[in-house]
């Protein structure tokens, strides 16, 4: 997507004013801890995405980008905190400047701001994973499968995929839940129909036989078939409006019996047992105030989750990032999983009680309807109120909350007020006292009631079928989605798995070249097992060392990025990544980045100079593509080991007569540069296990090595009979020897009077030639054209040549074979 040419940072984090020129190439930022390296990383992330992940997200407490992003002295002036980057977009062949201030992080000033440029920058902004820190690295490796899946999903932007999966599942589940009362309605309608028909099984032949018997009484033709539209009373004259509706005696008596049975079931032992069990479960929940409160919260969060749609909290309208808000609410719901389980268990036990109440309600409604046909009409007021009460109880049991109220309501379920039973008994007596209808009237009553109930049953079946179709449809959609997403993700994971194993095997090719790994996606989780020296597959943290795990984290990240961005993976920031990798594998890690990601610009931070050298020798970075911070202060921010800055600073100290400070800085700078020289020239230094070398242990070997190399070069020139070259080398050697002698460095071991420890005792005028001598001496180690230190090639085995970065200096060290 992009490559960064340069960055200018002002009053941002711990940096006052800093410009780094990356030139679109990989770049290293080296320096001890606390010198401002991560400030540069934060600035890069901020310029490209408008955010600093270290200052935002979970666990950051009261720290915020706007408040704590500016330099501490500019905390009340966020507009002064600015970062500007110049980037190239290879696909557009354009160079673009992006500038942001902390006053309004989201508003980037982009020049030029044409639509193609803005689209690329939008994509960059959407991929903050271009910045990888060590603390993030390990998230991919030693995490629980669920957590790892979250991390990888975040990297692959799978949150939307997961959101849709959960959404479709919930819709299917909701449809299934809605089917339950419809099933009950069908069952009740069927029982009512059977009661009206006076048969025990709903078989076509039996229905036709019993209906035709009644029809024969009315001289109606027999029905030959029973289809979905057949009317049992087909051909029967409709009673005129003046004709009062009669109580169908036989059916009413049957319904009264059914009502009594339903009421008896309501206060049966089974119902009592169910009530006692559910009440006990709910009392347990209620007895623990924390759990009870959690049930309320769980219901609240679940509802809230469904309402989260825009970028604001649905409760208080506080602006939120939609994804962050959902993650936040989901995390709260995840903590309440046990509560959810208890609630679901109670709901399962409550379901039969609700079915019983529905049965009572339906039976009473039927009887109340017939009572209204009595002459004079009977209201059955208590029974009607009890039916209404049943509906309220069903609603309460369905809602479950508040639990205390549900428990109270439950306790009353098996209690049937006597007045209801009395009303029904009285109505039973009224119906029984009715004169027996004629055969024709009886047949007419029978057909009217049977047809009405047949229609009720058909209607209930239709509703049930629609609901079942919805269940099947939504479940099928959910399953198809799950299968499709699994297939896509399995393909991605298979590729990532292969690349990961290959990348890691490269870094560890000495002993794990056959390394394999398994990424195992399952139900929203992502298992990760790795081969351990052919002994089997285990979690990464089981047997591999921390260093190996860091390597795995980097390789998994690189494999994921490769699949996520493909050829667009042109920029990445590796902040302190791989610091725990053992020295033996760092070179390979550098080689991997160089070989496998040749088109990616890596900005890398490290506090380890050895790492920096590995980066250079493996060719990830060139000689000048690095900055070395030497210290940091709150007033000035990071200070770098920049030759121009250092010599100016030394001169400033000297002029202020602070020779002590000037001498200290000169010594530290020479130590730093001498180490680099010894490395480049392959000088012989007395080994120290603690790697703490002093100036006197480094600079003299570097000088001796340089002189020895000139001697070898002259001998080689002599063997090739290259007179001109020999003369040039002799001149260089003589000049170098003169400068070395002026510095007195070679005499430190034998002449204490000229030792660098005595510099701080010199006057400012006496110290001036010392500074000049060492500045000239360091210059003698460099190429006159590119200014880079000379180096011996190759890095190991026999020395073949002295070279520089630009290629102008090329001195042969190999003699002509005899």
């Amino acid at each position: 997507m992009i490559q960064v040419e340069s960055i200018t940072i002002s009053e941002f984090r711990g940096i006052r004013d800093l410009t780094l020129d990356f030139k679109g190439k990989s770049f290293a930022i080296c320096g001890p801890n606390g010198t401002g390296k991560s400030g540069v990383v934060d600035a890069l992330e901020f310029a490209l995405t408008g955010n600093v992940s270290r200052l935002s997200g979970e666990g950051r407490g009261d720290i915020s980008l706007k408040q704590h992003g500016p330099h501490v002295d500019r905390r009340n002036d966020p507009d002064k905190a600015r970062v500007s980057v110049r980037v190239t977009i290879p696909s557009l062949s354009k160079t673009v400047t992006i500038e942001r201030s902390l006053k309004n992080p989201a508003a980037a000033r982009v020049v030029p701001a044409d639509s193609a440029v803005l689209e690329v920058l939008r994509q960059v902004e959407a991929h903050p994973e271009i910045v990888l820190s060590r603390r993030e690295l390990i998230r991919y490796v030693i995490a629980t499968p669920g957590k790892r899946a979250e991390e990888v999903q975040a990297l692959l932007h799978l949150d939307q995929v997961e959101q849709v999966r959960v959404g479709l599942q919930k819709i299917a589940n909701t449809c299934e839940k809605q089917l339950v009362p419809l099933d009950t309605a069908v069952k009740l309608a069927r029982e009512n129909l059977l009661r009206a028909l006076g048969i025990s099984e709903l078989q076509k032949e039996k229905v036709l036989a019993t209906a035709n018997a009644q029809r024969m009484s009315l001289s109606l033709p027999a029905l030959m078939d029973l289809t979905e539209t057949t009317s049992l009373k087909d051909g029967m004259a409709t009673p005129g409006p003046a004709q009062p509706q009669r109580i169908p005696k036989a059916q009413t008596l049957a319904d009264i019996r059914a009502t009594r049975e339903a009421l008896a079931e309501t206060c049966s032992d089974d119902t009592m047992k169910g009530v006692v069990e559910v009440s006990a479960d709910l009392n347990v929940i209620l007895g623990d105030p924390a759990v009870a409160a959690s049930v309320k919260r769980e219901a609240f969060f679940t509802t809230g989750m469904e309402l989260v749609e825009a970028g604001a909290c649905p409760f208080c309208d506080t602006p939120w990032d939609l994804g962050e808000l959902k993650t936040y609410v989901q995390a709260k719901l995840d903590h309440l999983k046990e509560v959810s389980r208890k609630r679901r268990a109670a709901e399962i036990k409550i379901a039969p009680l609700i079915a019983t109440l529905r049965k009572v309600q339906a039976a009473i409604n039927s009887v109340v309807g017939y009572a209204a046909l009595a002459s004079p009409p009977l209201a059955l007021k208590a029974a009607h109120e009890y039916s209404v009460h049943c509906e309220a109880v069903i609603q309460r049991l369905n809602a479950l909350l508040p639990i205390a109220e549900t428990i109270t309501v439950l306790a009353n379920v098996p209690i049937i007020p006597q007045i209801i039973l009395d009303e029904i008994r009285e109505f039973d007596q009224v119906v029984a006292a009715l004169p027996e209808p004629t055969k024709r009237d009886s047949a007419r009553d029978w057909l009217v009631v049977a047809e009405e109930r047949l229609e009720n049953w058909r209607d209930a079946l239709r509703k049930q079928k629609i609901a079942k179709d919805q269940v099947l449809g939504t479940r099928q959609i959910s399953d198809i989605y799950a299968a499709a997403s699994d297939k896509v993700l399995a393909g991605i994971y298979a590729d990532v798995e292969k690349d990961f194993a290959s990348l890691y095997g490269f870094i560890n090719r000495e002993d794990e070249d056959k390394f394999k790994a398994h990424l195992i996606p399952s139900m929203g989780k992502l298992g990760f097992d790795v081969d351990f020296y052919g002994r089997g597959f285990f979690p990464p943290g089981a047997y591999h060392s921390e260093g190996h795990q860091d390597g795995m984290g980097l390789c998994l990240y690189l494999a994921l990025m490769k699949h996520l961005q493909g050829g667009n993976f042109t920029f990445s920031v590796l902040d302190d990544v791989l610091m725990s990798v053992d020295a033996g594998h760092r070179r390979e890690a550098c080689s991997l980045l160089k070989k496998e990601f040749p088109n990616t610009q890596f900005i890398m931070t490290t506090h380890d100079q050895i790492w920096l050298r590995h980066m250079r020798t493996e060719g990830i970075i060139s000689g000048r593509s690095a900055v070395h911070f030497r210290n940091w202060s709150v007033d000035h921010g990071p200070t770098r080991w920049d030759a121009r800055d250092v010599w100016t600073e030394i001169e400033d100290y000297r002029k202020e007569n602070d020779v002590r400070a000037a001498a200290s800085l000169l010594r530290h700078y020479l130590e730093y540069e001498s180490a680099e020289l010894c490395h480049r020239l392959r000088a012989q230094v007395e080994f120290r296990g603690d790697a703490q070398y002093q100036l006197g242990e480094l600079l003299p070997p570097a000088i001796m090595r340089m002189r020895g190399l000139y001697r070898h070069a002259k001998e080689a020139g002599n063997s090739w009979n290259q007179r001109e070259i020999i003369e040039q080398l002799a001149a260089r050697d003589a000049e170098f020897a003169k400068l070395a002698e002026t510095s007195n460095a070679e005499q430190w071991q034998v002449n204490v009077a000229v030792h660098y420890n005595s510099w701080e005792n010199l006057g400012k005028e006496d110290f001036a030639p010392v500074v000049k001598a060492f500045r000239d001496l360091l210059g003698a180690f460099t190429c006159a054209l590119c200014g880079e230190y000379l180096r011996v090639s190759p890095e190991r085995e026999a020395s073949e040549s002295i070279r520089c970065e630009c290629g102008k200096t090329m001195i042969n060290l190999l003699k002509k074979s005899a």
Partner: protein
Amino acid sequence: MTTSPASKGTSDVPGQVFEKFLQALNDAYAPAELVARLRKTLLEEKKFTERALKEAVLPEEPLP
């Protein structure tokens, strides 16, 4: 080392999943209107809430 060749990348993984899903629905002879509604919701409007999905999957109110 044999890593897979660098490709265009799968930057829009969700888009890839949604396309595959809609194709699978077509293959399963799902109603064209349903597929069109889901395409609009997921790929055009980029709405992923349960409510938006419900409107696409069950355009009429589900039964009480």
